[in-house]
Structure formats: structure tokens, C-alpha cells
């Protein structure tokens, strides 16, 4: 089937992209047979498109640890050097405020929701309303954290785990407030801890949630709902997270 209608440049590209209506394809093909230079040009475009698809489709270009300098909440100056590790003796002891009732065991839906909030906090470092806890004192940090979470928290220096607290902040949530600790480790790896107060909570195993290139482990322990978020795989994150948490809460 041929037609006398001229073949426009846009139609050649639409043909290439599979966007040309069925009825026009034969005309374009006839045009290309009659114009080998144009056919060669189109073939070159096709080759370029295939090369772009091949070369730029890499599933996930290495995700650099997020540490953008303009994100000031990363660096409020809360850093504890290795040599201080031995000196710090603080315990995460949790007291339950009078009048609290023990809550039900963590459900799968709760686990997921907590994971989502933790992941969002991990990814959005400067969400509106987030308040950096600007202190270099573990005592002060523990007090701010206890106050925000409504349960008593005492932190130790986690340096023995190889990670230090790079920043801490209070994250407002629909119900209550959460606290996030941004941990910086060897090779500038970053893991965030996310805590919500959960009076009555007792220790549970880690539950793994993955999504968006992140691994999130969720658990409860001593009146806290906890999550750790990082880009490493679940096994490694569980090992590292356990090590840091144990150092942190003593």
C-alpha cells in the first residue's frame, strides 16, 4: 500500500518508536526503500537508541551513602571519638510511666508501618518539623530522647561497635514523636536507628522489611519500638545493627 502523502520527519521517528498508526506504516516503509540514505539514517538512530537502553539502563547506579553537605542535620557536632568508648558507662534502662498500659504484641501491620516511618525518616533527613538534638553529651541526648519518647532511655557510647552517633533528631509523627539516631561507621557507611516509645514492649526478634533499595529491620525491646535502616543486606545489617544496639543500650 502506498500513498502520495509526504513522509514527515516526525513520522519517521514515530515509526521508529512504534507510535505510527498502522495505516501509515506501509507508506513509511515504501519511502525508506526508495531513499536508502534515509533508511541508513534511521538505522543509525535505532542503533543509538538501543545503545542508550543498554548502557543507561543499569538497574541501580551505586547508591552513595547519603551524606550531602547541605543537609546540615547530619553534622550537628555530635561525635564521640573512639578513645572515649571505655569511659562511657550508660545503660538504656527503661522506666514505665505510671498509668501506661501494656500494649498488644507487635503485629505485622504495625511492623510494616513502623518500617515505613523509619524508612521515610532515613530518606528525608530534613523533613519539616524535624528538630536536631544539638548536643555532644550522651546524658543530654538521653534526656531529650526520654522526653520525646515518653519512656526512660539511657544511652551508652556505641564506639566499640565501630559506629558513632553522627546526629540525632526528633521526628514528629501523626501520633507522638520519634527519635532518629544517624550512625556513621567505617568507610562512611551510614545506618539510622529509629525509635518510638512503646510502653510495655519486650524484646522481639528482628523482622526484615525491604523496599526502595533499603533494608529495614524492626523489633521491640524494653518499652521501645525500634528500626534500623541501611543499604546493606539483611544479614549484614542484622549483625552490624545488633552490635551497635548492644553497645548503645549496654
Amino acid at each position, binding site marked *: 500500500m502506498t500513498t502520495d502523502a509526504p513522509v514527515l520527519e516526525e513520522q519517521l521517528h514515530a515509526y521508529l518508536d512504534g507510535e505510527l498508526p498502522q495505516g501509515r506504516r506501509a507508506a513509511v516503509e515504501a519511502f525508506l526503500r526508495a531513499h536508502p540514505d534515509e533508511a541508513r539514517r534511521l538505522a543509525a538512530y535505532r542503533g543509538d537508541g538501543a545503545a542508550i537502553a543498554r548502557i543507561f539502563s543499569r538497574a541501580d547506579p551505586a547508591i*552513595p551513602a547519603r551524606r550531602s553537605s547541605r543537609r546540615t542535620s547530619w553534622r550537628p557536632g555530635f561525635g564521640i571519638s573512639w578513645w572515649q568508648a571505655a569511659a562511657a558507662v550508660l545503660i538504656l534502662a527503661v522506666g514505665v510511666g505510671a498509668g501506661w498500659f501494656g500494649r498488644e504484641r507487635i503485629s505485622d501491620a504495625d511492623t510494616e508501618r513502623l518500617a515505613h516511618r523509619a524508612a521515610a525518616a532515613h530518606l528525608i533527613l530534613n523533613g519539616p518539623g524535624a528538630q536536631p538534638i544539638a548536643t555532644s553529651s550522651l546524658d543530654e541526648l538521653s534526656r531529650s530522647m526520654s522526653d520525646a519518647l515518653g519512656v526512660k532511655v539511657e544511652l551508652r557510647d556505641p564506639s566499640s561497635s565501630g559506629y558513632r552517633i553522627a546526629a540525632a533528631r526528633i521526628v514528629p509523627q501523626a501520633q507522638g514523636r520519634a527519635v532518629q539516631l544517624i550512625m556513621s561507621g567505617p568507610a562512611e557507611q551510614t545506618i539510622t536507628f529509629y525509635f518510638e516509645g512503646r510502653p510495655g514492649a519486650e524484646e522481639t526478634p528482628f523482622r526484615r522489611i525491604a523496599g526502595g533499595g533499603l533494608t529495614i529491620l524492626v523489633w521491640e525491646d524494653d518499652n521501645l519500638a525500634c528500626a534500623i535502616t541501611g543499604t546493606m543486606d539483611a544479614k549484614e545489617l542484622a549483625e552490624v545493627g545488633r552490635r551497635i544496639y548492644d553497645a548503645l543500650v549496654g
Partner: protein
Amino acid sequence: MVSDQDAIWAEPPSSDSSDDELTLAILAELPRLRRHAIYLVFSHADAEDLVQDCLEAALRKRFSLQDPAKLRSWLFAILNNLFLMRQRSHASRGRTLQIEDVAESLVASASAEDRDTARDLARAMAKLSFEHRQILLLLNVEEYSYQEVADTLSVPIGTVMSRVARARRRLRALLEGHELHVVDAYDDGRAGP
């Protein structure tokens, strides 16, 4: 289509489960957004900032997403708008394209026989205007249809058609022309539709 003027953090009405599902769905699109952003701005650091801004905006106005099936193009539209705003803002003028960094990472991940192509293509893509680079990425990498590109960029479909024709011609000229040289700033010459 998607405005970023309303910079007020809307309080989430509640932590209901559909909201959580949407948040998770947004997070699941991150690798794709990040990939697109890196090759759009040709800088890992700038892309990271852009994606973070996009994510913040998306979560902030997630209640305005009418059709969850269109989540991806909604996110790409937000990313595109944020990028345009940055381009127009004084602060982002003269941001540097990390062409050789990005080229090297593309070369490193390419198959052995594709390495030269990857390097030439990376340099040529970097030399294109961002609109041309963007449309080639959306069509070839994201496999968008013309209509999806038009929706995402908020331009008429005729603009998509003429833009892709021009983008391919320019890319070919760059690849054939042996005139490649390193540019160190965004090609700000937006050549119209």
C-alpha cells in the same frame, strides 16, 4: 500539572494503611528515579539532592495523587519540575556536570565490547541540552510512550515528536562529529519545544 509552590508540610491525617502502602510504593520507585536523575543531571551528588527533594515533595503531597496507577509518571513529573526550578534559580547556575565521573561509572558497568560506546555515548549525552537528554532517557530507558512523555513533562504530544527528532539528530551529530569536548556547565540553552 504538579506544582511545588505549596511548600507547606501537610500533616498526615492519620497513619492509615493505604497511606503506608503509598509510602512504600514511592520508596520502591526510588532506584528508578535515582537512575534517571543521575543521567539527567550527570552528577551523582546533584542527583542525590534532586531525588531527596523529589521524595520530600512526593511524600508531602501524596494525598494529591489521584490515580495510584500513575505513581511513576507522577514522581517523574515532580522530579522534572524540581529540576526545572533549580535550573531557573540563580543558585544552580554553573553547577558542574561530572561528565567523566558518570562516564567512567557507565564504562565500568558496560560489557567489554560496549566500553568504547559507553564512553562516547556518555560524553555525547552530556553535551546535549537537558531536554534532549531527558527525552532520549524517557523513551529508551524508561520505555515511555509519546503520550506518557507528554503527560510527564506537561507538553503537547506534538512537542514530544519534534523534540525527539531533534534530540536524535543532535546526538548523532555529536557522535559522528569528533567535536566532543568536555563541557563544565549545564547546557542552559533551552531550545524551545
